[in-house]
């Protein structure tokens, strides 16, 4: 499968990264990692990028890394649809102090608008 993984700076993105790369090894997926600059998250774009390269190297996976500028949700959907991806993968949301699952605005937009299947990693 051709997978478009969208990741930002929150913890759920890093979990999605680890699981998607592991899965790509098992299934032989062709992976593209799109780094999203959401602003206001725990990690900078540079920190996300080094986490990505590290995880890819550890698992021996060769993946294209891209940067998504502008509105991340619409950009991800546009890239996935226009370039023939089979699936968009995103982090499954952060949790509130109470433990409630909260989806980010990118995930909400992608879920409602994408014609390509979407996976949220929990």
């Amino acid at each position: 499968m051709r997978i478009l993984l969208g990741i930002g700076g929150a913890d759920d993105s890093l979990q999605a990264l680890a699981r998607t790369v592991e899965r790509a090894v098992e299934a032989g997926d062709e992976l593209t990692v799109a780094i999203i600059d959401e602003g206001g998250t725990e990690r900078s774009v540079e920190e996300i990028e080094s986490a990505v390269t590290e995880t890819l190297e550890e698992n021996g996976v060769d993946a294209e890394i891209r940067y998504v500028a502008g509105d991340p949700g619409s950009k991800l959907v546009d890239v996935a649809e226009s370039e023939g991806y089979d699936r968009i993968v995103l982090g499954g949301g952060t949790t509130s102090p109470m433990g409630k699952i909260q989806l980010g605005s990118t995930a909400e937009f992608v879920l409602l608008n994408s014609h390509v299947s979407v996976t949220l990693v929990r």
Partner: protein
Amino acid sequence: MSRNRRYPDEIAGPFESPPVTFEDRDGREIEIRAHDGSDEEYEALASMYDAFDPADRAQGIPPSEERRIREWLDNILCVECLNVVAWDGDTAAGHATLVPDGDAYELAIFVLQAYQEAGIGTHLMKGLLGYGAESGVEKVWLTVERWNKAAVGLYKKIGFEVSDSESFEMEMGIRLSDGSDEGG
């Protein structure tokens, strides 16, 4: 990830602090008490959540498996957390909690299915907010699914106002004090 949340300017309440005893609409005598931190109460809450109907879960809580229920309870029964329980004898019928979040608290409330629509939720909310105000809590927020009319109606009746309605779930806030009056 904390962000700026909006709260009403006006202070809500006053709310009576627990313990409060009342007869619910099904004639059961219910007592609202602050959680005393005992193992007995912890186990009663674990049993309540074990019996909880998954259809009434909200954004993934309460979790549905015993190990996860206990992990979650450990989190929301933290030292700084404020918890009140609605008791029918030794049975936990409902539970409401305030979990610290920066300079505010996040609220959640659960009423066991057999005890719903009997007025327990309203008493639990008031009891928790009374306990919160008494403990110096200034601001409280919560999220609720926008289609959950019963819950949204209850929160509005108590004094919560919608602070963010742009996400899947709606955010509401209430102010219990303006922070200028310590105790009192």
